[in-house]
């Protein structure tokens, strides 16, 4: 399955944001090293299975439910995802229209 390149970029950005968040929590001693490992394992395990926006959103939501300091990332991406979905939808609609025109 071809993965949208934009999604790949988005996913990398998300990974970086998640890593930074863990680091911040570590440095502020909000979590222990063991907890950070646990979190990282969870992320690595699940994020690699996401291949589209909806799956990534679902993962982020589950992550935020487990550790609420990820809520910000989830909210931000959800906001952006709306735009992405819309853009994607618009693209699809445009494609459809174009195909209609070209096929007539």
């Amino acid at each position, binding site marked *: 399955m071809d993965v949208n390149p934009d999604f790949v970029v988005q996913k990398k950005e998300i*990974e*970086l944001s998640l*890593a930074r968040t*863990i*680091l911040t929590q*570590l*440095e502020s001693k909000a979590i222990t*090293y063991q907890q950070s490992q646990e979190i990282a394992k969870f992320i*690595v395990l699940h994020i690699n299975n996401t291949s589209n926006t909806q799956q990534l959103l679902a993962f982020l939501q589950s992550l935020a439910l487990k550790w609420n300091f990820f809520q910000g990332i989830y909210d931000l991406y959800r906001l952006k995802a709306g735009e992405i979905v819309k853009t994607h939808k618009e693209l699809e609609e445009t494609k459809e229209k174009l195909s209609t025109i070209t096929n007539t």
Partner: protein
Amino acid sequence: MPVGSPDRPISPAEQAGVIRVAVGVETGSVADATMTDAERANVGSFKMLVDQQEGGRALEVLATGFNHATTWESTAERQIQTGFDATTGDRKARSPTETDNFRRVRETQDVYNEYLKSGYEGLIDESAYGGKSIRQKQDMLAGQAEDFIKSNAAIADALPKDWTGNVDRYVMRDAVERVLKDPVFRKQLTERLNGLFDPASLPKDLEAQLLTAENKLNSTSQEVIRLEGLQSQDEAEKNRQQARKIKFDTESYTSSNGIVGGTKKEVLENLGIDSEILAYKQAQKHLVEVITGLGGGRYTTADRTAAEAAVRTAKTPKVEEHEILLNESGDINTKFKDVERSLATTATELLAKRGQRTSVKTEADNLAHQRRAKSQEFSDEVTGAIRKTAQEYLVARARKLISEYPQYKTEITASLKAEADEKIKAQADSRWIEEREEGWLWRKRTVYSYNEKMTQWDVDNVLNSLSTQGNPDMFVETFLTDAGLTVEQIAQLKQDKGFMEAQRSSLVAKLLTAHVAAGGQINETTQSALRMTPWGKKVSAEWINNSSEAKQEVERLTGKPVSENSLEDVFKKKGSKGLVAALLLALGIAMVGKGIF
């Protein structure tokens, strides 16, 4: 030979040292004393990757808990080894990330190598950096390390050619700090660093602080000068005032006395007049006498010469200064006068404005007074108009009634006039005027159209009127007249006693009902008046209490059962408006129905 090149491979010990330092570099910022070294290393590695924008890899490192040393070792070794072409010894092209890593490795490695070469010992003299925060110290040390590296030719040769010379302070700071914990190194590094101490590495804001302090000093100095200047001005003013005083006093004295006696001299001196100035004045005065011959003396040319010389002699520097001040004081006097004139003008204007304000206030008061007077006048006027109109109408009506009932001329006139006057007196207000029904008309209206203006007195009076033996039909006739009936028609209707009575009782009932509903009361007077009516006489407590029809009507209207005596009580009771009104209504109906009349 650059370390790490094929000819200068990094030794295991050095590599271990690099790793050890690198561990400190990478984990130095993670403040968690409870972490093990391995954990700390892992976190450090994790952080490093985050800094390198490698979020995914960072998470993997953290998740798997890679031993940092292993990771770093591999990376370092790879970086070092791949940094040079095994065949040519030339540096290979590296990615920016690799370059950055390599640089970090090399920097720490170089410092450590220097340490190894120098064999530094001892501790750093903390007093050199006393009072500074750890961060500041670290920055200073990083700066010194940078200079240290730059100043060391061997290290400089070992540096990559593309090295920009900007030491990653994060790297160096922690590296140096970690290394500084080695007592041997510290002692030896102390000397080097102290020697390389650069004042430029002082906190940047210190420069700003100095500038601020200097500016403050300058401004303070200027302030002092300004104050001194003011003081000078103040002194000058005092001198001018003194000069004026001297001038006045001297002139006053010299105009009245030509000779300065001991007593007067003492007085003058007590006034603060300087003796030098006084002597000068005296010399001047004498010269004037010599020139003019005033004073009665006869003076020669020689006398004049001597007098002129005496004036010149007496004109000491103090006197000259005094003269200057006097001249200035003359100007000042003029200026004062100008100011006084200005003040006087202003004062006059102020007074004028004040007076104007007063006059305005007075005018406002006058207007208010006039308004009050007018309102009173208006009130009187209105009252007069009411009275006049009422009287005119009253007269007209009286004439009409009298023409119809000549036998009642006296009663009609007296009654209507009295009542009209009374009403006018009590009700002379704008509402009455708006009604446009004065005196008799208003009175009439209340009979068949209750309004809120009606008072208890009115009700009582109506009933009293009804009870008057002479003209019980009067109100009915009025009602019929206003209804548009002619005198002839009314006369015919009056023949029908039943009709007249019915109308009267209906009107009374409506009147009383409305009166009670509006909060009025059925008092003793009302009751008495009611009972004195031809039909009222027949209304007794017994009838009220025993009238089944009345009871039924009241019960129907109020929805409440009525006891045998309750009607009477209700009738007398004050406050039960609804019930009393219902009773009155029932009473009226019952009266008509029973044909009491």
